[in-house]
Every structure is written in C-alpha cells, then in structure tokens.
C-alpha cells in the first residue's frame, strides 16, 4: 500500500529539513521529536532500530538550537536527525555488529561519524543489520528480523537492513550503511528509497566494521538525490586513517545536480547478463523508467558488456569476500563458532577452503577486468541502467533458508546485479521506479565510470522530477 507521506516534518526531505533548521523556521528539537514519535509507532512493526538514543538526541537538538540562537553559522546538516547501521564505531559504545559475539566497545571514532558530527547532524540511534554484515535478506536471529515497511511479511534485504526501512518509514532523514555485495542498494531498492554505493576509495572505512577490505564500501541512504548529494559532500574525501581513500577532490555534489534536463546523455542498457532472468513485473518498471529518461532528453542505447567476464564478477567478488572474511573471523570462529547463526557461520568460514593462489589471482585479475568493463561499456554510454533486484521482493518465509544447501542459490539471485560492482569498484545508485503486483517497490540501478557519483545523482534528480516514487511513503497500520 502506498500514499503520499503524511508524516509532517519527519516526511520532509533532508535538504528541506536542513534548510528550515538553518533558517530557524523549525527547531532541531521539533525534527528529533517527530522522528522519535514515529520510531515509537513503527519499531514494533519493522524492528529497524537496535538502540534509540532519545535522551541524547533531544539534548543534542537543544544544543543545536541554542547555537543557532547565539548566532553560530550552521553546518550543512545542522540539527538533522540521522541513524546508522550498528557497525560505525564511537569510542566507549558497543556496536552489536548484528551479532551476539560482538567485540567490546571500541576506542576509535568512525571517520564518517566524525564528519557527520562536524556537519551538525544528530544521531538518533543505531540500526538493525545482518549478522556481521553477511546476509542479503535482512534476517537476524539475534536482533530479530528487520521487516519491510511496505509489508512486514516481506524482507527488508540486507545487510544494511535497518537503513532502507528506517529512511523509507520516515524515522530518520538519512543513514550510513555498508555495501560489500549490494548491502546498501538492495535494502534501498526493496524499501523504495535511494541507496548509493560510491566508488571504492571515495569514502573512508576507518572505524567501520571490516568484512572484506577489498570489497567493503560505505554507502548512503536517503529519499532524494539532493539529500544523497548533501550527505556525500559531507562524508566523502581522503582520510589519512584509511590508505584506500582517494585524493581526488570532492565535488560540490548538490551544485552539480543540474536543471533536470538530460539532453546528450547516453543511457546504456546491457545486451546480456544483467537483464537476463528479470521478472516481467520488474522489466515493466525498468522499461517505463527508460522511457521517462528518454523523455528528459537522454538517448537510450543497447551496449555490450564483456561477455565472458560478466557472468563471473559476482563469483570473483565472493572469492575476495570469503577469503578476507575468513581471515577476519578466524580467531572468533575458533572460540565462539556456536555464537554465530548457522548460515553466517558457514559463510564466514568458506574462505578456509579457498586456496591462497585462487584468492591472489582474483585480486590480480581485478584491474584488468575493470579496465575491460570501462572500455567496453563506457565508450558507448555515460551511465549503465540495469535492475537492482530482478525479482519482486520476496517474503521472509521464502528466504528463511538458514545454513541449508539452497542458501548459495538464494543469495546468488539477490546479489546477481549488485555484487559485480563491488568487485569492479564502480559507483552504483539504486533509484525507486515503481511497484510490483505485490505492492512492494522496484528500482533501477545506475552504474558509472569511477568517481562518476555526480553524474549518477544528476540522472536520479532529473528522474525524480518526472515521477513521484520517492515521495510515496509506507502507511502506518491502525
């Protein structure tokens, strides 16, 4: 069921909320209070929060309001309530990592949390996630499953399950997640919000739970392209604590969103692999979005993708993730294996069986395969358009396979169109484009050249002007 939002100030976009606070048209306390009231109503239905910092958030809001009253120049996110996946570290605060085997409270502060703090954002709480970020469905035996706000019988996807659900339900204006195989884009897609996995190296992973240093990418959830642009502008950039981060200057993303026209832009539709196995309902939504982009002046072109390699990117990504995850989890698994759920226990240990030369070769192949992909695809188009998830959003029951033999198959279906871009390191943005017959959202995914986040956001911003998908909100029961 969908409707235009009636969520009051909690339903405003992040950009509008930030602007209204800065102009003192609304107080930070009003924003925080509105979000807390919604969390109270929605949490029993969707279980998207792990912890709610009501007292701390209200105190922070009062400080933010007092600073404005005293004439302080506000930061770009001054007084805006956000909430993040429970794996971004703050000194002295235990992050559950979605597990009952979580480590003690860290002493480090996540670089991304520090940048959001400095921009004036308020942290409302921590969000549900798959155990150790290993799971694309949103199931969590320890914290309880996060549920889809459009229909709680359906999955919220994962691993950043709480991010998509929280932002869609208007419980916070934006969220940090992590994306190692689709873990931001999939929850965003099934919740009807935008989810960005930036280029590998665009955002710092310092102070974020590691799963795979070769594939982990911090990501962002928001309800509009402009909101994502604001958040990205704040958190992106070189970090001396993370050698993976790029020294490339950070663009003023909100300033380059454009006027909504896409004349001259070439939107590529892959001729093979990515459109195979896509359901008729999702195909209809994808094709309608392509017609909308054409209406904005874009040229839609069929493009080849590297034929041999495309079918293998996901599996190559798995080689990296499982080998590195086994190295990270090895010591904990030796001591506390039974504190892991059956599925995550097996997945975290899969690297024990992957020969070291195979891991090294999967890493060594990556630059060459990236170059092949970029030269093949982006010589013919500016952005690639493909599904985020090629099937209607499944139910919790349909995907509750634990550690059984069918687990690999279920996971493969979900990450088919997302994991390739973790292996290739390319930026990818999931954009809502309608609903399937079960009433749940469908999305397209835009993929660009390395560091082309601004272009992806520009296309999404133009598309939003023609459609109202991102303005629709799930309806509260009762």
């Amino acid at each position, binding site marked *: 069921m969908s409707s235009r939002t009636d969520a009051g100030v909690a339903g405003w976009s992040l950009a509008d909320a930030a602007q209204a606070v800065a102009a003192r048209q609304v107080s930070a306390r009003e924003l925080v209070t509105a979000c807390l009231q919604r969390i109270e109503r929605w949490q029993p239905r969707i279980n998207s929060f792990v912890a709610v910092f009501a007292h701390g958030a209200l105190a922070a809001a009062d400080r933010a309001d007092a600073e404005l009253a005293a004439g302080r120049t506000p930061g770009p996110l001054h007084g805006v309530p956000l909430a993040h996946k429970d794996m971004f570290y703050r000194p002295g605060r235990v992050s559950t990592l979605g597990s009952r085997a979580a480590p003690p409270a860290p002493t480090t502060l996540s670089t991304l949390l520090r940048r959001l703090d400095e921009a004036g954002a308020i942290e409302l709480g921590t969000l549900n996630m798959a155990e150790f970020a290993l799971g694309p469905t949103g199931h969590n035996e320890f914290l309880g499953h996060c549920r889809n706000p459009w229909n709680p019988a359906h999955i919220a996807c994962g691993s950043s399950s709480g991010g998509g659900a929280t932002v869609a339900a208007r419980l916070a204006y934006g969220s940090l997640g992590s994306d190692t195989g689709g873990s931001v884009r999939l929850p965003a897609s099934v919740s009807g919000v935008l989810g960005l996995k930036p280029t590998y190296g665009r955002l710092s992973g310092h102070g974020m739970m590691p799963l795979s240093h070769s594939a982990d990418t911090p990501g962002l959830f928001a309800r509009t392209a402009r909101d994502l642009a604001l958040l990205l502008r704040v958190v992106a950039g070189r970090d001396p604590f993370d050698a993976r981060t790029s020294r490339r200057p950070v663009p003023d993303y909100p300033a380059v969103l454009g006027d909504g026209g896409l004349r001259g832009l070439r939107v590529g539709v892959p001729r093979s692999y990515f459109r195979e196995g896509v359901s008729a309902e999702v195909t209809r939504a994808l094709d309608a979005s392509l017609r909308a982009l054409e209406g904005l002046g874009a040229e839609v072109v069929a493009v080849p993708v590297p034929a041999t390699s495309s079918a293998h990117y996901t599996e190559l990504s798995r080689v990296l993730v499982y080998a590195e995850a086994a190295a990270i989890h090895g010591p904990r*698994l030796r001591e506390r294996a039974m504190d892991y759920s059956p599925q995550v226990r097996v997945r975290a240990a899969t690297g024990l069986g992957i020969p070291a030369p195979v891991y090294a070769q999967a890493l060594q192949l990556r630059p060459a395969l990236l170059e092949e992909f970029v030269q093949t695809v982006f010589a013919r188009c500016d952005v690639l358009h493909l599904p985020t998830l090629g099937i209607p959003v499944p139910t919790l029951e349909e995907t509750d396979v634990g*550690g059984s033999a069918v687990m690999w198959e279920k996971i493969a279906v979900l990450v088919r169109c997302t994991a390739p871009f973790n292996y290739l390191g390319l930026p990818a943005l999931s954009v809502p484009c309608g609903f399937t017959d079960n009433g749940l959202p469908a999305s397209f995914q835009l993929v660009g050249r390395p560091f082309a986040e601004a272009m992806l956001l520009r296309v999404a911003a133009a598309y939003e002007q023609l459609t109202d998908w991102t303005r629709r909100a799930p309806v509260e029961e009762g």
Partner: protein
Amino acid sequence: MRAPIDAQAVLELARAQGHGWVDEEVARRIAAAASVAVNTVAAVLPPATAAELLGASPAEFRDTLERLAGDEA
C-alpha cells in the same frame, strides 16, 4: 571444469587451522563454494598471463580506478 574440492580435505584443513567446530556437513558446504571459486578464477584467468597480472593491493586498485575516471559531473 576442474575436479571439485574434496569435503574431507576441507575438513582436515579446517581442523588443522583450529576449527574443531567444522563438521562434515559444514565441510561439504564450504567445499561446494570453494570449488565454484576455483573454477571461476580458472575460467577467467588467461593461463599465460598470470605472472604479468600485478597490482593486487587495495591502494593499487584505487589507483586504477582513478586512472579510468572521467569528468565527475
């Protein structure tokens, strides 16, 4: 297609690494996934050029991304 990785070998390898919790069923699951991994890399890797493929570190991969970037807007 190469021969699948033997579950018994995985079991012994896991035990040798101190993972006494890995049983035959878990070893079968790991062996199935690891076999796919080995075959995937074999399918993509051109045998003669393996020694020429350099640049495997995260920072080197980021350098490749930077080199292939276009105009950001």
